[in-house]
């Protein structure tokens, strides 16, 4: 397409059925905006999703859409991409969809490095089924299935993806209307499987789970934008920084008061699994949440590797004949009936 697309070009006539105030609204807007900027024609884009509130996504994006079954979207999308590699394939799911029932498919899609853009809308709860705890819920989460509080140790999506061998991992949030499209654009540009964890607020069942992330002022205190080649500085006044102790992998906060943070903070390197792991694992009251492209270290994607070994062609009659006549054949050419 030549003319400039707008978010409207990616908007369907379907009424949105999320709860008023749900973080998914902002995400769908950010995605539409990103798609318009990327400029692929809507007819060359496909959205595949599982089941859940997040998985309603395809209805709201004017593209080819497939709302499949719970947990299987990465597998469906893998088949779609294999069959139709020119498509721009996006996969959307919730934390239950991607990490609970669908954990294995996500693992293998990441490991295989099929060129998919995987958006994990993490609200740390099962929204659609009315609020049970999910694999990303913090320990102690009280929910209808854990009335006394959960005891499971949660899965960390970034850490999981690193363990799965993912080559592109990013994180953003529903509350970051400018940051999110940036990250999505990077994910799209990455050839291979790209996982974007989007922290999302479920206003009905898990309101405020991401704490101050929702609030503009606190966001800057409570999150840090990691940027390749730049020191890890955060805070409204850019007065805090992070230093990674590489030997332990622990991260600590430094303050401007103790000297210029921009000089002392660790310079982020998005190709480093050590840094990626370190910022993914940061925990504790004051520690900020890392957002941005946390890891990006491209290797050849599955289909490219495959096609180098086996160039794709459509089977024709001669090919078929070759196959039919392979192996031993014999010809029967009796003039009359055998005895």
């Amino acid at each position, binding site marked *: 397409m030549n003319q400039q697309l707008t978010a409207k070009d990616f908007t369907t006539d379907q009424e949105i059925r999320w709860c008023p105030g749900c973080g998914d609204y902002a995400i769908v807007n950010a995605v539409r905006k990103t798609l318009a900027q990327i400029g692929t024609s809507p007819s060359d884009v496909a959205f595949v999703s599982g089941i859940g509130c997040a998985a309603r996504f395809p209805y709201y994006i004017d593209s080819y859409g497939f709302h499949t079954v719970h947990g299987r979207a990465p597998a469906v999308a893998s088949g779609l991409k294999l069959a139709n590699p020119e498509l721009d394939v996006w996969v959307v799911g919730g934390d239950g969809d991607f990490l609970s029932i669908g954990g294995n498919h996500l693992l293998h899609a990441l490991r295989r490095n099929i060129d998919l853009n995987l958006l994990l809308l993490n609200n740390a709860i099962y929204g659609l089924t009315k609020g049970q705890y999910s694999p990303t819920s913090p320990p102690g989460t009280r929910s209808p299935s854990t009335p006394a509080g959960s005891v499971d140790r949660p899965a960390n999506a970034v850490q999981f993806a690193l363990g799965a061998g993912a080559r592109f991992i990013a994180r953003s949030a529903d509350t970051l209307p400018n940051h999110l499209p940036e990250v999505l654009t990077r994910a799209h540009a990455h050839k291979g499987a790209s996982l974007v964890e989007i922290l999302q607020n479920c206003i009905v069942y898990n309101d405020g789970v991401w704490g101050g992330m929702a609030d503009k002022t606190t966001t800057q205190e409570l999150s840090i934008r990691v940027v390749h080649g730049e020191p890890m500085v955060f805070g409204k006044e850019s007065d805090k920084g992070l230093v990674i102790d590489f030997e332990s992998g622990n991260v600590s906060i430094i303050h401007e008061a103790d000297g210029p943070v921009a000089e002392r903070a660790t310079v982020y390197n998005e190709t480093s699994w050590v840094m990626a792991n370190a910022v993914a694992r940061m925990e504790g009251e004051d520690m900020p949440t890392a957002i941005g492209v946390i890891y990006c270290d491209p290797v050849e994607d599955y289909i490219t590797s495959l096609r180098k070994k086996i160039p794709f062609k459509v089977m024709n009659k001669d090919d078929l004949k070759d196959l039919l006549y392979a192996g031993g054949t014999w010809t*029967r050419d009796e003039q009359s009936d055998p005895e």
Partner: protein
Amino acid sequence: MVVRFAGDSGDGVQILGSEFAKSSALNGHDLITFPDFPAEIRAPVGTTFGVSAYQIQFGGPLVLTHGDEVDVLIAFNPAALKTNLHSLRLGGLLIIDEGAYTPRNYKKAGYEGDPLEDEELAKYQLLKIDITARTHEAVDAMGASKKQGDRAKNFWALGLVYWMFGRDRQETIDWIKTKFAKIEEVAAANTGALNAGHAYGETMEIGADLAAKPQQAALPNGTYRAITGIDAMSLGLAAAATCSGMKLAYCSYPITPATGLLHGLAKFQAKGVITFQAEDEIAAVAAAIGASFGGALGITGSSGPGIALKAEAMGLAVGAELPLIVVNVQRAGPSTGLPTKAEQADLLMAMYGRHGEAPCAILAPATPAECFQVMLDAADIALTYMTPVIVLADGYIANAAEPWQIPDVDSLPDLKPKFHTDPEGFHPFLRDEKTLARAWAIPGTPGMQHRIGGIERGANNGHISYEPENHQQMTNFRAEKIAGIANDRPAITPDLGPSSGKLAIVGWGSTYGAIHGAVNELNKDGKDVAHIHVRQMSPLPRGFEELLRSYDHILVPEMNMGQLVKLIRAEYLIDAKGLNQVTGKPFKVGKIKQTALDMLEN
């Protein structure tokens, strides 16, 4: 003529068998072969659970099964004797490799004393040859190692049977040359053994007294190859790709006995087949559905346990009305069951094993060779009606081989799908008036963006709909669409025997040969019996009820506890009787014949 080779997994019995089969075909016989693998990969040498066997029936004018009873049994070791002797007919020829009948070996096989001393063997013509020693005599001089010499004994035995049945050795000698091109001394040893076995037979005049010389096949002229069901399926799918002009995406997860399809199609990758070994069966069917969504022909295949796992996603394909082929190479269940043994107990799962009302088309090949055409039919139905099609094969059909006349590529049907490209008035649940197929527009087509999924859709606009009456209507559409397939396809007729009369024996799938054989014999004996074989399990074929009603009695032999018989009874209220067997083994002609005779008497 039925010959059975049995030995340790390491004895090369499968090679021996398949070479003999090839030669039988080249000699103009019809044939059916059946390899009988052990469940273990490589069990300890000499144990009964490590025995591998290969049975072939060859002759003419038509060969229908691999044979109820064996005429010639070659048992390479005591374990093979122990597990296979029961298959030999009284008076049959038993050839054993004397060298392997040591006390150590027969104890390993579970014999108390030397089985060759057993009076039991008096019932057979016993021929003891020290095949191991004879082979070494022949090949040791050729520079083969001890191990290579030991391994050549299957070729020695092949030479012997070639002599017994007057076969030419040249094809095999050529084959050995190609196969072992890189290890010359092995090629030499094998050829040497083959010749030595042949010479031994000639000298000792073995087999001169073999009762009837097998007849020639009554097959039409043409070019043939021997084909197993699994290979015929692979080729059928390859043909479907060519005929539809579509990409073919076979997505699967290994499982016995379906794995051969993945292996077979993986070999065709360079010709344009996409194969994808998924992380599990659910991912496999999901990827196939994704491929179909993308405009390819998505196919998945597995066996019982794996098919059970696909049920939920198959429901999605039903709801989203996408073409999909699901091949189930059935094996004995429940659960892991007997993985290497055949059974037909997944028919009702294929019919009903999805939640909600989720009808699919179901086809079942009757013979190995038929698998080729059934795959073309499956693709045709999937594409014409936008529906999943289940193909029910089984471990017997998959592994058994028979001659197959290679079809003329130019005469294959045109399966090209009509993709929708016109946005005017389009929505994805627009239906073809005749077939009720929904409109298929594939991603990448300009202006046709739409969304599908597993939630119920409005019949009039394709959007999500929770309307009560719409759900009824869509449910009716899905049911009628499948039911309507019968109208467009041939009416059923008997495979053999009168089109009305006293008794019809109704079968499906791999019981074909045994039923056909039985009815053949019954007809020869002047009995008023027909063989009706169902290949279209859902919808049941046109004219089926009328045909069934034209017989006094209906007998349905199945390798299950009675599944097709249930469908017939429920559908037509006809008092069909089942003959059921779940032993992991195919029916014997004799059992079906006897049951039919009993029914005719009452």
